[in-house]
């Protein structure tokens, strides 16, 4: 299967502080790829490189054929329209209602007939169980609702690639399972490629097709494979410690 994201020898650093060194991996189209690891291991930094918020100084990051190191801003922006991002805190714009937040990317996508445009916004909110919250502002929502609204906005354009930064952090188990189901339906039904940064073992074992484990001391990947492979056959004690935590 074709690789939709290719990372080759990526080195990430803030000044002299190296976060990741020579990281390489590929994400296959239509698969769910999880990036896991302890706090401070560079997961969120890696995600910033994948979504083009940071440009690689060393190594290459190629997303859907676009080299994020050498492409101009216009090309990267065109590439970004193909993907959606769910940020850890939702990333909603506080001065806009939920409907306006979701309408923002939709208005860029094309001229939809008027009642259909409203239905489209509502359908996105309905997908994340926020029907009726169109006119609410983010400040009026709980943390879990903000995250679901952020997901609705990430899904607005039915993107080919979805990036998630801790999609279930801070959610109650019921809402978290709703998110698992939603991710599964979107992946299988719409063939969306997904990259998920998470600590959530249940999510990894339920959904991920492939996982990489980052480690802060190694400043890179210490294990890769399917969740079952890493749970059952890993020899490294650090990998065993991570994947053999007791599931709830």
């Amino acid at each position, binding site marked *: 299967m074709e690789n939709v994201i290719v990372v080759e020898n990526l080195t990430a650093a803030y000044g002299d502080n190296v976060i990741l060194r020579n990281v390489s991996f590929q994400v296959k189209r239509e698969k769910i790829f999880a990036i896991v690891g302890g706090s401070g291991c560079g997961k969120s930094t890696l995600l910033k490189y994948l979504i083009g918020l940071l440009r690689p100084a060393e190594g290459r990051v190629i997303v859907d054929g676009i080299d994020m190191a050498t492409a101009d801003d216009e090309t990267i922006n065109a590439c970004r329209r193909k993907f959606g991002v769910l940020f850890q805190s939702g990333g909603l714009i506080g001065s806009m209602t939920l409907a306006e937040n979701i309408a923002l990317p939709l208005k860029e996508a094309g001229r939809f007939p008027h009642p259909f445009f409203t239905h489209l916004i509502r359908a996105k909110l309905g997908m994340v169980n926020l029907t009726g919250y169109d006119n609410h502002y983010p400040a009026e929502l709980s943390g879990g609702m903000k995250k679901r609204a952020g997901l609705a906005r990430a899904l607005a354009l039915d993107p080919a690639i979805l990036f998630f930064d801790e999609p279930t952090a801070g959610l109650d188990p019921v809402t978290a399972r709703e998110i698992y189901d939603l991710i599964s339906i979107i992946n299988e039904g*719409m063939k969306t490629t997904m990259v998920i940064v998470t600590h959530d073992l249940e999510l990894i074992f339920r959904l991920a097709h492939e996982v990489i484990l980052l480690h802060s001391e190694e400043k890179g990947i210490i294990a890769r494979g399917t969740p079952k492979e890493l749970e059952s056959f890993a020899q490294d004690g650090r990998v065993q410690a991570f994947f053999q935590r007791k599931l709830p």
Partner: protein
Amino acid sequence: MSGRYVIAFRMRTLSVSGELLIADVPSFMREVEDLIARQNITSLRIDLSELRRVDSAGALSFVHLEEEMRKKSVDITITGLSEDVRRVFNLVDRTAIHLPPLHEAERRASIFEAMGNLCLKMAHDFYTILTFVGELIICLPYCLFHPRSLRWGDILLNMRRTGADALPIVGLLSLLIGLIMAFMSSLQLRQLGANIYVASLVGIAIVKELGPMMTAIIVAGRSGSAFAAEIGTMIVNEEVDALTTMGFHPIRFLVVPKIIATSIVVPLLTLYAMMFGIIGGLLVGMIGLDITLTTYLRESFRGVELWDVITSLIKALTFALLIASIGCHRGFQVTGGAEAVGEATTSAVVTSIFLIIAADAAFAVLLHYIG
């Protein structure tokens, strides 16, 4: 064919094949509506057996079409959904389509309602300010009698930010104001041969009115807004809640150091502004009006008495209390996110400047009667 989908219409059956994704939806909907409008049908079957892939916008376009046809009393059925396509259809929330339009809930208030709401808001604002001042009145004496409870480091930091960091802008603006006043008044007084009165005019205006007021307005713009933004951001980030749960009194912890720092530096800044205002006038006097340094200073101080300086410093202290309290109060009023912090900042500056001018007017009347 348009995009990646293919439409065929035969025997009251609309067949859609290929892929229907969000980018194709507007053209797909137009084509289908045109196609159906040309037929006179009472029933329609939509065959999706050849539809390989659909996203949620594509699925919604069929649900939307279904609703539109039902409104026209056309009997409609959708058939041939593959398992993957059916899963995407199940994602579409059909109840959402029947909800009222998005902005219907936002009814425009009449002028009387708007005025009533404004009055209520002002009354509530007045009440919260009174409550805040009440808390301050309790906290300030406590801190004065328990000096160890004060965060002296924070007071010094606020003195630097509010006072020392403002020295260049206060000095420059005061110099320019003194310069402009002297220049404009000299144009008139020169015609009467009364150049010498420029010195006392500038001195009196700067010492009695412009020095304290301009300093207060600059401090309100620089520091009052900063207090509101700092406390507002702390509220948004739940830092104030954290302080409260750790047993700290938010007013004592956050507000009192700012009030003490501002009360010390604003009178000092006012003296500094007076000095630069007089220097501005002096430059015009010496360069443009041929008045000597000693004559200019003697004339300046002839019009200004020690009592004027004292009352100006009392005004400066009052302005300082207003600026710091309003800035902090607006910060505590923040609810919500970044936008509310911006509103609080604007409100802190506007309210402070209004109250500075109102207090100055009150002082003018009061000092007139005191003599």
